C-alpha cells in the first residue's frame, strides 16, 4: 500500500515520456520513471521513495525491444528478468537475472529497474559491465548512446528527466566463456552475500562484483591482479582483494571477515573453472 498519492502516466513514445516528465516538473511535481514498479511500490510503503507522478515506460516500444543481429544484441530496459532469462540471448546475463529475487517477482522486475534501483545489488549490471555495453538514454537533448562505464559508476548517473531505453552489446561477447556465482547467507532465495560475474576475452579475465561493496563494480586494478598469470592463484586472489574500491561490506547478510572468506573461495572457483576450461 502506498500511503501517498500519485498520478499514473503511460506514454507510448520516448518523446512523450520525456515531455511528460518536463511538463510535470514544470507543474511543481516530483515525477519518477516507473518500469516494473516493484521497488517503487515496496519502498514507498516504507517511505523510502516519494513521487507524486509516475511515468510508466513499459509501453514505449523501444523499451521492449529485443533484437539480435549479427554483431549486436539490443535489449529494451522494460524487458522483465524472466524474459531475459528465457530468451537467453546472452547466457551470462540470463544467469545473473535468474538468480535475482524469485521467479514470480522476476515476471515483474525489469532490466532497467534493476540497473537503476536503490537496492544496491543491481546484479544484472555485472554482465553488462563485463561486455562494455552501451546504454541508450533518452532525455531533454534527445536520445544518445553512451558507454556503460561512463554512465554507471557505482550507480546510474542520469540527469533529471533522463531514462534508460536500451542496452546494447557487441554480439562477439555473448559466446565467450563465462561464469556467474551468487553466494547467499543461506538458502536459494535472497540477496547476495557476494556475487561475482566473470568473462574471458581471449586470455583476459574480466570480473564484476555485487554484495562486496554497497554498489556493483568492475575494477581494472582487481582485474590486473587476477590476470597476473605468472603468480599462483592464491596470490593473485590475495592481491586482487587488496584492491577493492572500498572496505568489504559488513552487514546483516554477513560480517566483513566472513564475506572475505566467501569471496576468496568464490574467486578461486571462478579462476579454476575458467582456467581449467582452457586445458
Amino acid at each position, binding site marked *: 500500500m502506498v500511503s501517498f498519492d500519485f498520478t499514473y502516466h503511460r506514454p507510448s513514445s520516448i518523446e512523450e515520456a520525456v515531455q511528460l516528465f518536463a511538463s510535470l516538473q514544470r507543474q511543481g511535481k516530483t515525477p519518477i520513471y516507473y518500469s516494473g514498479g516493484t521497488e517503487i511500490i515496496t519502498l514507498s510503503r516504507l517511505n523510502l521513495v516519494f513521487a507524486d507522478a509516475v511515468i510508466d515506460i513499459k509501453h514505449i516500444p523501444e523499451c521492449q525491444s529485443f533484437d539480435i543481429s549479427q554483431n549486436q544484441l539490443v535489449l529494451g530496459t522494460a524487458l522483465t528478468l524472466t524474459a531475459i532469462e528465457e530468451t537467453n540471448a546472452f547466457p551470462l546475463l540470463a544467469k545473473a537475472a535468474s538468480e535475482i529475487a*524469485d521467479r514470480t517477482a522476476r515476471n*515483474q522486475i525489469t532490466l532497467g529497474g534493476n540497473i537503476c534501483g536503490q537496492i544496491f545489488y543491481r546484479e544484472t549490471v555485472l554482465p553488462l559491465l563485463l561486455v562494455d555495453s552501451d546504454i541508450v538514454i533518452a532525455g531533454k537533448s534527445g536520445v544518445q548512446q553512451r558507454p556503460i562505464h561512463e554512465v554507471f559508476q557505482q550507480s546510474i548517473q542520469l540527469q533529471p528527466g533522463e531514462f534508460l531505453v536500451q542496452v546494447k552489446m557487441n554480439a562477439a561477447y555473448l559466446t565467450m566463456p563465462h561464469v556467474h556465482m551468487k553466494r547467499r547467507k543461506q538458502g536459494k532465495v535472497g540477496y547476495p552475500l557476494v556475487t561475482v560475474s566473470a568473462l574471458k576475452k581471449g586470455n583476459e579475465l574480466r570480473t564484476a562484483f555485487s554484495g562486496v561493496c554497497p554498489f556493483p563494480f568492475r575494477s581494472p586494478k582487481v582485474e590486473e591482479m587476477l590476470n597476473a598469470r605468472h603468480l599462483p592463484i592464491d596470490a593473485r586472489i590475495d592481491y586482487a582483494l587488496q584492491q577493492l574500491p572500498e572496505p568489504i561490506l559488513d552487514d546483516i547478510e554477513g560480517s566483513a571477515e566472513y564475506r572475505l572468506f566467501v569471496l576468496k573461495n568464490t574467486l578461486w572457483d571462478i579462476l579454476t573453472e575458467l582456467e581449467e576450461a582452457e586445458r
Partner: protein
Amino acid sequence: MSSSSKCEIPLTVNGEKYSVIARQADTLLFVLRNHLGLTGAKPGCLNGDCGACTVLMDKTPIKSCMILAIEAIGKSVTTIEGLRDAPIQRAFVEHFAFQCGYCTPGFIMNAHALVESTPNASEPIIEKWLESNVCRCTSYFEIEQAVKSVLAEKQASKD
C-alpha cells in the same frame, strides 16, 4: 486525498468486466480485495516476498501487492476465485497440500500457471517457480506431490 489521484479503472477479472474508482496509487491486491471483494488473494507481506498475493495477469503469475491496479488495464486478471475445477485444486485437496490455507491461493495460482504453461516441467523448473511462495504449515513435500500429480496426469493424457 486530492480527487485528481482517483480515477476510473476498467478491469477484466476472471473473465468479467469491472469498473472501479480507485486511487492511481492503489495496488492491484488492494483493489481486488477492497473494491471487488475478491479476498482470495492474500496480503502476507506487501513487499513481494511471500507470494500469498499471487494472481495471474495474461496467464503469467505476478505478485499483486507489487503492481498498480491501473497497470492491469487491458490485461486479463485471474484470481483463485476464477479457477473452476482446475486439476491443481483437486490435487491440493487430495495431497493435503495445505493446513491453515492462507498461502494456498497464491501457491495454487502459481502452480496452476506452471502446469498449464509447462506441462513437461522438470524438477528444477518446478523448484524455480514455486520457491516464489512461502508456506509455514506444510513441509512443501505435500505441495510438491500435488504439483507432480497434475503434471503426471497431463503427461498421461498426452501419451
